[in-house]
């Protein structure tokens, strides 16, 4: 049985349960409702601050929509169960924070290698290690990119508000399904625990994507092939009599292990990279404000994008030609657009709740003659409009 979020029965349940309207809710809840609207019907997780509210909301809501909530014995098992469930056709998710994200890295790599669609929410908290467990941060930017071993691509999106979290979660599921790949949501503890208005739409307003299934026996026999040239193999789900073989070892197009032939490895791993590279249109997303004529560009992401916007607006009021660039898909980084914007501005500020991570990506795309400066804050307290504004004034 495959539960599709757009089945009439599911639509009926959702319509009955979730009246469109504005709700005062936490960011974590917004993620959860986003997941349910996107069709997520399997959640396995392990409690951790500040992601536990996602688990709690899923435990409460999933049974209502015939979905499964599981609490596993740890985060390693959680993502493992999510992968297993995904192969049965369930849209699946887990959520965690830094320590759990570290533990999930091995199996996240497995999901990349086996091309298993799933969504992993990392609600970033102040690290390293246990750090300040109840405080938010943006310190896992590069862990999301490089946390698992070996060459691998990854897609990560990062919401900038509760409302955005609802929609970005849906987008994350759609990307995961479309490209048969895990997608990380780089959320943060500040927004996770912030209550705001979130508009819950009618399910009819939501566009939902499903993974490609094999059209025939032949496609089913090549679970890791590329029959459509888009790098995305149709996924022969378990339980349909396809006798699918799935392994995290290097495998041929038919799924069988071949860990000795260099060409097999090269072909597989490069195709998995190419799949992500050639489908930028599926996931690339950024927001721009006043970039047409900006002289000072603020590049920010996630929770910090919001005070950054406040600061840019204030700077404009003061007559400073400031602009804002917000990558919403942060991995792969929208480098080309960054390069273009970098050519037009005099100074770039990169506010982040960390000691400078996204700035290292920005650095790769901008020339030496642009002043590049981080605006960094650690300790669990978000950057404020005032602080960012001060930095803008400083380079104005």
């Amino acid at each position, binding site marked *: 049985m495959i539960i599709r979020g757009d089945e009439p029965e599911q639509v009926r349940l959702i319509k009955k349960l979730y009246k469109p309207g*504005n709700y*005062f809710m936490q960011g974590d809840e917004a993620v959860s409702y986003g997941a349910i609207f996107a069709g997520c019907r399997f959640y396995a997780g392990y409690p951790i*601050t500040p992601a536990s509210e996602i688990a709690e909301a899923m435990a409460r809501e999933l049974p209502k929509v015939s979905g499964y909530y599981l609490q596993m014995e740890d985060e390693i098992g959680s993502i493992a169960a999510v992968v297993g469930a995904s192969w049965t056709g369930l849209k699946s998710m887990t959520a965690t924070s830094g320590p759990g994200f570290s533990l999930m890295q091995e199996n996240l790599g497995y999901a990349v290698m086996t091309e298993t669609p799933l969504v992993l929410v990392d609600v970033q908290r102040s690290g390293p290690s246990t750090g300040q*467990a*109840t*405080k938010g941060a943006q310190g896992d930017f590069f862990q999301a990119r490089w946390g698992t071993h070996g060459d691998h691509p990854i897609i990560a999106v990062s919401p900038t508000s509760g409302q955005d979290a609802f929609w970005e979660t849906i987008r994350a599921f759609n990307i995961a399904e479309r490209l048969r790949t895990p997608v990380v949501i780089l959320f943060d503890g*500040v*927004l996770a*625990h*912030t*209550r*705001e*208005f979130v508009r819950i739409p009618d399910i009819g307003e939501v566009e939902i994507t499903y993974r490609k299934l094999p059209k025939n026996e032949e496609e089913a026999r090549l679970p890791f092939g590329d029959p459509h040239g888009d790098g995305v193999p149709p996924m022969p789900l378990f339980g349909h009599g396809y006798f699918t073989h799935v392994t995290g070892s290097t495998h041929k197009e038919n799924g069988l292990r071949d860990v000795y032939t260099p060409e097999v490895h090269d072909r597989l791993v490069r195709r998995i990279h190419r799949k992500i590279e050639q489908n930028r249109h599926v996931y690339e997303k950024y927001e721009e404000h006043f970039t047409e004529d900006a002289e000072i560009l603020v590049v920010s992401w996630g*929770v910090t994008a*919001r*005070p950054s*916007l*406040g*600061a840019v*607006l204030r700077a404009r009021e003061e007559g400073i030609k400031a602009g804002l660039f917000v990558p919403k898909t942060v991995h792969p980084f929208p480098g080309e657009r960054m390069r273009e914007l970098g050519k037009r501005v005099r100074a770039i500020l990169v506010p982040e709740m960390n000691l400078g991570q996204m700035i290292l990506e920005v650095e790769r795309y901008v020339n030496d003659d642009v002043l590049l400066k981080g605006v960094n804050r650690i300790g669990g*307290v*978000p950057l*404020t*409009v*005032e602080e960012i504004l001060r930095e803008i004034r400083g380079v104005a």
Partner: protein
Amino acid sequence: MQIRFAGIGGQGVVLAGVVLGEAAAIEGLNVLQTQDYSSASRGGHSIADVIISNEPIYDVMVTRADVLVALHQLGYDTVKESLKEDGLLIVETDLVKPDRPYVGAPFTRIAEGTTGLALTVNMVALGYFVAKTGVVKKESVEEAIRRRVPEGTEEINIKAFRAGFEEGKK
């Protein structure tokens, strides 16, 4: 307006913030509510922030509080710096000894007197705050309480809220 509730774990400070936020939401205001607390236990400080505005809100934290409602010395000491010079300080007078001008009352005793439950102190303080500031309507808060408190405890909480409101109106 930036409002900050400060106390220790167990005083229900976060719930007070959530109810206030919901009340503002009911009135169609822009509102953002956050909190800061010790890891899940009851000894440490507990802070709830509410920003209410007619404009879009860009800050995700209270930067300079217009009002600080302090229910416990520990919470007060943790955040007192954030209250504006001309801000309003409301305190639980039995448990907080402020070092600046304030208004307030023995909220815990009022709670015990009204509901028999010390832990309704949060609603008493909220009532007092609403009476003093008028930032949201009494009725909105009562509706918000009904939505947000555990089933079965609505009336007791509203009772405490009203007691605080009365005290604030004095």
